[in-house]
């Protein structure tokens, strides 16, 4: 297996969605290829960092303002719908 072939399977490998035979081949490649090992580990870490550090949280005060605005728009929309019918 070449590094290029390993990379093609990296997403499925990291997601654990790979057959046993292919997994054994990929593990074998990782065993001797230091570069692919680093790429695999750092890609895994990339995913974990984004998953663990939510960078766009919705602050509570903004959340309640948005919620109020949404519900007002929905209420107005059903009222105008009713008045049209």
């Amino acid at each position, binding site marked *: 297996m070449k590094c290029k072939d390993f*990379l*093609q399977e*990296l*997403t*499925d490998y*990291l997601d654990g969605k790979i057959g046993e035979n292919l997994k054994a081949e990929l593990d074998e490649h990782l065993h001797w290829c*230091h*570069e692919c090992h*680093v*790429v695999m*580990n*750092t*890609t895994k*870490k*990339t*995913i974990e*960092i*984004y*998953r*663990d*550090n*939510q*960078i*766009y*949280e*919705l602050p509570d005060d*903004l*959340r309640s303002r*948005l*919620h109020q*605005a*949404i*519900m007002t*728009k*929905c*209420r107005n*929309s*059903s009222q105008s719908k009713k008045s049209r019918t």
Partner: protein
Amino acid sequence: METIQKKAEEGITSELALVQAAKKGDLEAFSELVRRYDRNIFRIAQHITHNEEDAQDVVQDAFLKAYQNLEQFQGNSKFYTWLVRIAVNEALMRLRRRRNDRTVSLDEDVETEDGSIPREVADWSPNPEQLYGTSELGDILKKTIQGLSPGFRTVFVLRDVEGLSTEETAEMLGLSIPAVKSRLLRARLQLRERLARYFKSKKGGGDGQQ
């Protein structure tokens, strides 16, 4: 209506029951759906638009559109899948408007291999997150993901940040499963490459040997 409200407070009402109640005009049921998903929709919108004002508008418009079109929701897919699809379209529309560029789409730059071939193969520090303070780390992560094209970052956000399956992501974005997988791989590799400059280990002289 009272039953729906009570169950919603207990957090046990199914999504489908809430949708059905909302279709019959139960606003409280719809309000519960908003509460369930507003944080996710806000995050997705922020990731696509990179603009808080636009993201707020996307959240409002996506929920309003969903409410106005509830009749069209068949229940073949999950409400959330349907809602995200609406929100992604709204977010892309706002991104186009802001960039004054009608060509912004999920297909942008998908053919490019830039950054998809690993060049940086030095290992990272054992705990890269600890190299930076929380807000500095947040800035690095934002700056890095903003560098991806919309098609790549949308797939990455849905699959890896929101934790949705490949199948759900494909349905939300109207893409094939192989297209989602290929974009995800390239998005992950591009992010890894860009983060390496912040996180790579200073020790070891770059040969990666421990």
